[in-house]
């Protein structure tokens, strides 16, 4: 455990009945770095995400988030919305979860709910149209506009989110998560379904978020071109356990990772399994 890590996951285990989705997983995500969580389908990556963001309560293990000011929060003790509100962890979803009937701008306004709620004096100041509320609302619209501009959606700000093309929806969901001003941004397969050009634009966006906002990023991704290009650190999971971690270059050459992804010859199964401790 070191001071540079923003998130340290320690002996995390998640059981669903008899199924052990995540088994004694420990890893750290470094501050202002991009950490990738990869692994074949069903490896338990999304379960880890759901534990970190409070959608699941882990069976055992701890997850500690340390802010820039040294304040540290045990995520497993907070439930659902408080993780976003107090611990400043934002997430996106594998299957996009925008508010399809609301405009792109409205989506980004909803993301600033907690700040705006305070500014509107828990609605009462807003109801009478107090100047302080008007200023706060204008500030929120400005922030949303900046993000729309950054993801190239400014011309479509007033369109319903459900009407946007798939790639735009992906970027809008990231912008929406960023509007909560998170310390840690968790992205669940942000490049899924994107073409090569869109993937490249996504990589650029994530790198710029890290550079400009100083947000640490934890991402699950299958698109290896994105993972290899932008990650600083890669954690590989298979069957709920960590099988490797290191720099993208290390991971690329790791035989265990290759075995997990590509499978092995039948006569080598026993050897690989004993090596993995299965």
């Amino acid at each position, binding site marked *: 455990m070191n001071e540079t890590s923003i998130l340290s996951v320690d002996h995390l285990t998640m059981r669903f009945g008899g199924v052990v989705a995540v088994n004694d997983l420990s890893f750290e995500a470094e501050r202002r770095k991009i950490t990738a969580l990869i692994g074949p389908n069903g490896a338990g990556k999304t379960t880890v995400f759901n534990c970190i963001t409070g959608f699941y309560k882990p069976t055992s293990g701890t997850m500690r988030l340390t802010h820039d000011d040294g304040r540290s929060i045990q995520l497993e003790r907070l439930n659902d919305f408080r993780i976003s509100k107090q611990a400043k962890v*934002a997430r996106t979803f594998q299957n996009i*979860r925008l508010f399809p*009937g*609301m405009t792109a701008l*409205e989506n980004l*306004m909803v993301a600033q709910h907690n700040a705006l709620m305070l500014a509107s004096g828990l609605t009462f100041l807003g109801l009478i149209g107090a100047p302080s509320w008007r200023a706060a609302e204008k500030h929120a619209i400005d922030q949303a506009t900046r993000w729309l501009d950054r993801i190239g959606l*400014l011309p479509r700000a007033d369109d319903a989110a459900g009407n946007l093309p798939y790639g735009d929806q992906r970027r809008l969901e990231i912008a929406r998560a960023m509007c*909560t001003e998170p310390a840690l941004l968790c992205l669940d397969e942000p490049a899924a379904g994107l073409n090569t050009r869109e993937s490249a634009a996504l990589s650029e966006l994530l790198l710029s978020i890290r550079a400009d906002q100083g947000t640490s990023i934890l991402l699950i991704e299958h698109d290896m071109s994105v993972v290899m290009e932008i990650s600083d650190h890669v954690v590989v999971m298979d069957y709920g356990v960590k099988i490797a971690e290191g720099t993208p270059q290390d991971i690329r050459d790791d035989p265990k990772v290759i075995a997990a992804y590509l499978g092995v010859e039948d006569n080598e199964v026993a050897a690989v399994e004993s090596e993995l401790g299965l």
Partner: protein
Amino acid sequence: MTATTPDLVQASRLPGVAFIFKKALISALVALLLFSLMIGIRTEAGPTGQLIYWTRSGDLAAMVVTVFGGSILVELLRQWWGPVGTVRIVPPNVQSALALARRAIAPLLLIFTFLVPVIFYDQRYILDLGILVLTYVMLGWGLNVVVGLAGLLDLGYVAFYAVGAYSYALLSTNFGLSFWVCLPLAGILAAFWGVLLGFPVLRLRGDYLAIVTLAFGEIIRLVIINWQSLTGGPNGVSGIPRPSFFGIPLTPGDDGLAAKLGIEFSPTHRIVFLFYVILALALLTNWVTIRLRRLPIGRAWEALREDEVACRALGINTTTTKLTAFATGAMFGGFAGAFFATRQGFISPESFTFQESALVLAIVVLGGMGSQLGVALAALTMIGGFELFRGFDQYRMLVFGVAMVLLMIWRPRGLIGHRAPTVFLRHSQAISSELAGEGRG
């Protein structure tokens, strides 16, 4: 596209004579099955109480033949008309005129409503009907917060209406508090009960939520019926004071408003006063709802309707958000209830049956979930239409049912089927409610 394509389309669209006959035959068969019991056999209690029945095969045959002929006619009409689409039915210039009319309808309706007591001053019936319609407009707008904005299906809205009515009735008859003091109290009490209902149902969604709210409505009614010592049970509460003009009673006496203004007393004054009171209350509901929609809480309600999981991921406390929606809706229901009590002067549990909840919910759904204007129009159609068909007596419900079915075919998302964004950068464009969620919680 080749030149032959239109012919192909034409050919594929025109089914043969055999198809039409087959369809008509099936319709006739279904009609025969249905009507053989409904029309074919007539039962009655005989002179000594035994059951007697006789067959009416003539009527039955006539009915089946009508269905057979009607089915052929409908199919032929459909072929003559061609594929149905808005573009074909409504030409663009008419559409733009309609768009203009749509923008003008709300202000015109408001001006007309303000003038109703002036125009129909000597028609008590119209004024009473107007008050009734406005009460339902207000209830619709109140329920719209819960169902239309937050997407929480509430089948027990009448409970809050009852709480409001009984709050005013009991506070005024027991403690002599005036209407204007009781009005906010009734709202607060109803909101309190809204929160109380909200707590246990927070974890429920969709159908389950609907069932529990339905039960809640019934519980409140049963408690009112059975708590004889407080509520008077089925006998209700009578002698509820009429509202005063801010302390000045609307009575023929020397201290009445008419005497103070030096005009001749007329009982219509009170009706007109009540009309403007409910209009003011309804407009207050509307104003607050419109304001709330543009505040973070209103946006959170709509976001909750769209996707609750995403809301939680954005740090929105879904518990308090749902509770505030319940409380706000209940508060308006409470206001309307207090008004109802003061208008009637007498209330009993019979006024707060499930039918009222269903009617208000129908108004909200018919109007287009979340649309303020739609709800107002729907209330006008439902309540006004009900009165309009009073002459048809037993066919009233039938006509009404047919009208509802037609409306649901043509406008499945309600009269006003789109939502207006709460904030925009350049131009506000309506969002089709096909995209908007209906809510699951």
